């Protein structure tokens, strides 16, 4: 059963369709990258998933049930721009947010202490939030999001403000949570993080879903007809090739229509060219993002 299913949700402000019949789902133990240009409708979609705003049409199902008040305890949400109660202590803040997710104060305290240890902030638990640095506050926010052991996590730009060490820590935590079978939606503009962490990707642009599927499938779909070949000697004349551009240590071979990489490789093997590297140039998610966002402009 999917952890979350978004089915044909629509949100209209005035006469503008901010989100237009968007559908996707996330399985348990899976990370979905929710990507899209600024103003595409990502945040509105997330807010509808969290029942903060109601969709005009469509439905959000959490673990097979329609989203209701009781579903809120199953979800952890880290909003994009965040703040906390400045005058409260770190521990009190975490316990308060934990109790609002249905935990008892005692249980929330135990879990908060444990998580603070995990993010190396135990020493700061009695300090006020206003004494925390930007990165520390960010870690505390993440702890507040996962404290109540939610089944679904929605993380909006979780890496903002983190130094490389803490960034690695958060990545490890996200991977661990996936290992525990939690479904995670990661909304971010950092395409390299999506590539590194996500199993599936959903791209939204101008309120519409424009790309959805497993990351590997998407990359295969967007793979071009360019080969990158590194060899000891010259490649020589090849059949089924539109053009060859030779760089210092490799050649970029653009295949003619109908030619497969296999056919090119066979020619090189037959000619006994020593091939050091043979690679079908795969576009990065960043390139795919720019291409789709550009097409839809």
């Amino acid at each position, binding site marked *: 059963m999917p952890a979350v299913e978004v089915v044909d949700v629509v949100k209209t402000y005035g006469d503008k369709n901010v989100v237009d019949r968007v559908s996707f789902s996330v399985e348990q133990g899976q990370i979905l990258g929710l990507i899209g240009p600024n103003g595409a409708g990502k945040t509105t979609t997330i807010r509808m998933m969290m029942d*903060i705003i*109601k969709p005009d049409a469509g439905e959000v199902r959490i673990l097979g049930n329609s989203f209701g008040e009781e579903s809120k305890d199953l979800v952890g949400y880290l909003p994009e721009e965040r*703040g906390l109660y400045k005058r409260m202590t770190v521990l009190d803040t975490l316990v308060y*947010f934990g109790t609002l997710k249905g935990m008892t104060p005692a249980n929330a305290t135990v879990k908060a202490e444990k998580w603070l240890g995990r993010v190396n902030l135990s020493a700061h638990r009695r300090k006020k939030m206003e004494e925390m640095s930007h990165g520390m506050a960010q870690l505390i926010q993440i702890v507040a999001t996962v404290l109540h052991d939610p089944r679904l996590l929605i993380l909006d730009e979780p890496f903002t403000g983190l130094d490389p060490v803490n960034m690695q820590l958060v990545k490890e935590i996200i991977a661990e949570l996936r290992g525990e079978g939690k479904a995670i939606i990661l909304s971010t503009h950092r395409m390299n993080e999506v590539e590194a962490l996500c199993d599936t990707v959903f791209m939204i642009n101008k309120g519409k879903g424009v790309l959805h599927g497993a990351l590997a499938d998407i990359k295969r779909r967007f793979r071009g007809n360019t080969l990158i070949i590194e060899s000891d000697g010259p490649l020589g004349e090849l059949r089924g090739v539109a053009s060859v551009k030779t760089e210092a240590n490799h050649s970029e071979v653009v295949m003619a229509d109908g030619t497969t990489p296999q056919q090119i490789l066979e020619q090189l093997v037959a000619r006994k060219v020593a091939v050091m590297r043979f690679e079908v140039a795969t576009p990065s998610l960043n390139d795919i993002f720019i291409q789709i966002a550009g097409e839809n402009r």
Partner: protein
Amino acid sequence: MRKTFFIIKHEFRGMVKRTSYIVTTLLLPLVGVLGIVIYNLVQALSGGAVEVQVPKIGYIDQVGIFSEATQQPGAELVAYQSADGAKADLIKGDIKEYFIIPGDYIAKGVLERFSLQTELQPGEASATAIKDFLIANLLKNEVSADITARVQTPYALENTVLDKSGNVAEGQGGFGAYIISYLFSLLLLLSIFTASGFLLQGLVEEKENRVMEVLLSSVSSRQLIAGKVLGLGAAGLVQIAIWLVSFELLLPFASSSIGGLFASISFPPGIIAISLVYFVLGYLLFGILMAGVGAIAPTAQMGQQMSAIFSMMAALPFFLIVFIIQGGDHIVNIILSLFPPTAPLTVMMRLGQGIPLWEIITSIVLLILAILGTLSLSARIFRTFLLMYGKTPNFRDVMRSLRQA
């Protein structure tokens, strides 16, 4: 329900830890203590009780019968042979004023009075002293001293208000009762203004720093409003309780050392109980209304401006106090007592002079209905406008949202 309780606890703790709350709560009793201390200090320094000088009033008797009863409670009457002597003493400041009793006074009843002050009318103390002095001398050979005293003061009223069943009624009116009911209304107004200020400020802060999104992803907007209003309301009640207890404690000191007005104040339990009910209901109604304003307002300042309309409504009974002081079931009083936004203050102020039971019951029922209605509407508005950062919805948007609700 559990979540609402945690919000109540959070808001209550947040509020009572605020410096401004602590200062306001302690300031009132401190001012009371300070007042009593300063009064007693002044008394001690001036050597015992502050002596009030009885003013002297000069007179020239041209009839020839006014010579007795010159010591009156409000003044001492001093006889002069001539107007010139009296005038000289008046200018010197030995006497406050003087009057001439002309020879034809018995026939015409006219006195000529002279003083240095421009007045609307002679002070009551002087007037009573002169009247009693004249009566005592006019009747001294005609009737007994007792009759003279009765003529001077024909009656002293001892009032007892009965209810419809002939028993002594709970609200006996009088100055003390007035003081209590007006005091309660003032405290309610003060509490509404301070707490709603905090409510607005808190909501706008949570909107600005996006804590609101985390809150709404954990609880419903109805739970959030209810928790906030009840949490701040509980802090308001604690404040009122501290004020009441300190009044109870300070009152005996004030009435024994200062006396006068303070001695006439009492705390009838019935009035206190009904006042507390109205305090809580009034507080809830305005708290919920303010929460709605907090949802719409993009900044705390805008929120204060927008909430002014509700503050004005709460204070409206003070502008129409003339009707309330006159008492009775004037139509204005009935409307103000039943209309939920003005009911708490009006009923509290009317409690002092008695108000029909049906009006109290009807107004409480209407208030509860209004609270439930506004809670539902405020929750809708909250949901619709809370996340419209930086945008102020226009009147049409709000009305549309209310219609859809």
